[in-house]
């Protein structure tokens, strides 16, 4: 029942829980370890980071570590776990693994709507370590960390979203504005 791929995925999950990198969280589905949900927070001090208005937008002020109101959205659960008081963009992704893992990379896709030069409209990501530069040494934490750093460090030479790529090169202000827009959207999306 336990194949090398599954064993390795269990290890990845344990590692993620014991030693989570900043701004990243992920867990497999209850009934299917080959399919994971993950959340990436926008890196601090970047347009991907929400800004001071965030807490007010949520409408419910929650003290750090305090009691959550009933019927809280999963998002608030995440907020409570985070040490920082600011809430940046929270972008949801799915990771689909195969039995070839870790010799083959998972298929990673953004669920939240994104505006980024290297992210396609359907959420697929154009990232080298997910394709030809993959190594069996990378684990889930490494993948998510790379994606997080891609957010504020795009590569306009391989544009998946030509509009975003153009805007990033030519009109930074407009680009940042759009980024803030999707950051706000990411809180309300389900």
């Amino acid at each position, binding site marked *: 029942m336990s194949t090398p791929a599954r064993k390795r995925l269990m290890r990845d999950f344990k590692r993620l829980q014991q030693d989570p990198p900043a701004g990243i969280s992920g867990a497999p589905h209850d009934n299917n370890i080959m399919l994971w949900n993950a959340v990436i927070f926008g890196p601090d001090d970047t347009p991907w980071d929400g800004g001071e208005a965030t807490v007010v937008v949520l409408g419910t002020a929650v003290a750090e570590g305090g009691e959550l109101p009933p019927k809280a959205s999963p998002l608030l659960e995440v907020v409570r776990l985070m040490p920082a008081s600011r809430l940046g963009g929270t972008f949801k992704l799915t990771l689909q693994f195969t039995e070839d893992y870790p*010799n083959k990379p998972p298929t990673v896709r953004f669920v939240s709507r994104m505006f980024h030069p290297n992210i396609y409209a359907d959420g697929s990501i154009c990232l080298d370590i997910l394709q030809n530069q993959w190594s069996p040494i990378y684990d889930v934490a490494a993948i998510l960390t790379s994606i997080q750093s891609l957010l504020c460090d795009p590569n306009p030479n391989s544009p998946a979203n030509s509009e975003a790529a153009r805007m990033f090169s030519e009109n930074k202000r407009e680009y940042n504005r759009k980024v803030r827009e999707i950051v706000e959207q990411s809180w309300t999306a389900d």
Partner: protein
Amino acid sequence: MDSEDDMHDANDLESVDDDFYSGDTAMGSDDGDDFDFVDNESDDSEDITYHRQQQNYTILSEADIRLRQEEDISRVSTVLSISRSAACILLRHYQWSVSRVNDEWFADEEHVRKVVGLLEKLVEVQNSRELTCGICFENYPQDRMTSAICGHPFCGTCWRGYVGTSISDGPGCLMLRCPDPSCGAAVGQDMIDLLASHEDKEKYSRYLLRSYIEDNRKTKWCPAPGCEFAVEYVIGSGIYDICCNCSYGFCWNCTEEAHRPVDCDTVAKWILKNSAESENMNWILANSKPCPKCKRPIEKNQGCMHITCTPPCKFEFCWLCLGPWSEHGERTGGFYACNRYEAAKQEGAYDESERRREMAKNSLERYTHYYERWATNQSSRQKALSDLHSMQNEKLEKLSDRQSQPESQLKFIIEAWLQIVECRRVLKWTYAYGYYLPEHEHAKRQFFEYLQGEAESGLERLHQCAEKELQVYLDAETPMKDFNDFRTKLAGLTSVTRNYFENLVRALETGLKDVGSSNSEATCSKTSSSKSLGTKGKGGKSKATGNNSRLAGGPSHSLDESNLWSCDHCTYANPKSAKACQMCEHRR
């Protein structure tokens, strides 16, 4: 004469296309040099295998390839004092060129080591009894872990998975590196042999063999389907015709079927044209008209001129003038009539799109003319090839029985068929040449079509004789007396056709430069020069013979001056005993 024929023909049967028009030196490039670099003796007296190796290419079987590969690896391994596996990696990186490896290595060894992944210094191995595998994060005792020269440890299972995946992914496995992304240590065949499964090792070995041919600029696989041979070619010798041991002839430059005298560009364009969508477009342009409203192409399939376009357009118009149907009245000559030419022309109705239609139609017809002939010659050649094979395998014996002639006396039939096969090939490609000949070059076109016509009619006569007339002798119950006459006739036709084709090939290779004058003294009947100027005639004769023996290996061997002489008038090869030409009665 017969015994010499035997010796050559035994080898000739394997190489169908080999010796016609492809000498071992650059042929037909400058006619002025004909006389100079022909070495009659070396051509005629050598036997074919030596002849082939003297040429600018060699055929390699799988065993040959393995041998060469092993030798190269050994050489590099000895000179550079490195392991065979490392030598193999190095060679592969530098396209299997031993000289390049040596140059690069001795120029900057460290740089080469880094680029290729052959690290020298062993990374410090931890002394702990247990190590953690970098892929599955399990702990294992040290002796169960393997690592490349870099020292990164991984367990056997993980290695097997890693190597197996890489090999399944294709020839990229030859450049395998350590799984650690920060490390570039190469993983060579020695590690593969340790770590991979049996099947994967076989696959790896296969990829390595293929790499020796594919990554090396001097070698290529024979493109014939099912052929396992490779060809090594000496670059810079100019002639691209290769004839493989499997009897497939191809061009080195473009790996298409052998296509002399036409150049590779023309061939590529022609093949593309035959297969391209562009022909469909041309057909559509020529045979359909666009709806005046929605512009979709419409093909008329009924008699009436009143056309209604399909929904959603539903526009009604006249097929002839493309005008709206509602306006078809007085203007166009009455209802249901559309015959007023002057008016229409004045109105400029025959406009741009109409002109394009006309041009497309013409272009399509022109293309069809050439394509049909190209394809017909192609299928004719295939048939001739199969006839040749059946002749070699069964019919020769049968004929020998029926006509009570020893098989050695029947070689002329095989030669005739070989000639037919080769001439069909040349003729086929001359049609592609003709299609691309610029329309405005009238003189060249006329000259080309004249030469082509002569060659074609010669070939048809030869093909007819070999096919139909031979059948009579095959079916005969008893030996027939006129078989010897038939032999003379067929041999004569073979030789005449060969001359016509040589002229054609030579003319095309020089780009039809000498338009107006035929620079071949063989076909042109210059009665004055051959009769009056004895020396010039002799010079011409030996020049023609020189050409023949240089151009065609086996059969032309018989046109050696001592055995036969070539008639100045019609170029028929007469036996020495004849005082006058047996074909045209012209005095020697």
